[in-house]
């Protein structure tokens, strides 16, 4: 199955920058489908990023976050090879998670 979360994490000068692209429809509930009916809301509510298991960012998202959400943030520390964990839960209770190494 193709990746659902793509992460690009690099470290430089003691700061690690994480970029992630997360596959998710992020349906707001305001858009009509081809059948003329409203597509029900379906969006990520909570997303978490960890570094070596420690929380480095918690995001609260909603219907106003674009489809296939992108995020970039940075934190102090991190070394090449360290694991960055990404996980999310959406309004339907669906979840996904993965781990990627800092380049």
């Amino acid at each position, binding site marked *: 199955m*193709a*990746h659902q979360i*793509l992460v*690009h994490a690099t470290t430089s000068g003691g700061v690690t920058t994480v970029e*992630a692209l997360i*596959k998710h429809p992020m349906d707001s509930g305001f858009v009509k489908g081809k059948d003329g009916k409203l597509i029900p809301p379906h969006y990520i509510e909570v997303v978490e990023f960890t570094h070596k298991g420690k929380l480095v960012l918690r995001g609260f998202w909603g219907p106003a976050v674009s489809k296939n959400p*992108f995020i*970039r943030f940075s934190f102090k520390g991190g070394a090449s090879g360290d694991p960055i964990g990404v996980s999310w839960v959406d309004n339907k209770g669906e979840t996904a998670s993965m781990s990627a190494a800092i380049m």
Partner: protein
Amino acid sequence: MRAGVNRAGARMAWGEDKTMKRVWLMIAAFAALGLARPAKADPAADLKAFQRYFQTRFPKLELKDYVNGPYNFSANDRAQWKQILEFPPYSFAVDAGKKAFDTKFPDGASYASCFPHGGIGIAQDYPKFDEKTGKVVTIGIAVNECRTRHGLKALSLTKGELADIVAYMTSTSDGKPIHVVIPNDKRALAAYEAGKEYFYSRRGQLNFSCASCHVQAAGKRLRGQYLAPALGITASFPVYRSKWGNVGTLVRRFIGCNKKVRSVPAKPDSAAYRDLAYFLTYMSNGLPIAGPGARS
């Protein structure tokens, strides 16, 4: 009998003089042939003229800049586009496309076995003219032909798995100069000319041709949106459109454009679109592949 003179020796009126009438008719016929016969297709000359037209019109743009489409004309839009490209929205499509491309067919063959160079770094050569069938083949059609040759069903030419596969294949040609070949074959030249005619013909309720927006109004706005010049316009396909929320092929865009001018679109694998793609991509020969791309 002497020309122009009847048996009685009197000068004849034109209508009476059958010989002169025949001569004049023959002259008229040859003249008509000369006027009605189209000049021989000269794609190379057309290409020079096409690129020169835009370069004269936009002297500050280098040829390769044209692949940026509308983003050469608005700093506001260009900045947003650049930011979105920092983590391209077509990343999932390329990822999925590579997986699909690398997956073997039930009979053990693969996409790689259908294409030159294993399908890597060849997108810039499409569309191609297929001498066996006498038709233009786009990269998407080539993917489907590969599938059907190996017992698989053809995929939608506009989006989905095929678009992902084409996105992946195109990504392996990033930066390579577009190199569409039009062989000295009557059928290839006819396809080229048909595509060219399509491009310049008005259609639909709004009565626009492709040229109306992408030549005459290139660099100008249609409501809030800048119009990309036709030169370079195919280079970024397949394209992730924010509007679509996924990746679509050139033919998907042809269909969309047709609908927008309220013209009934043709079928995705129609000769009309194959030939249009042939002409339009050829006009960008020499420009670098910039696909897959991102647009609004």
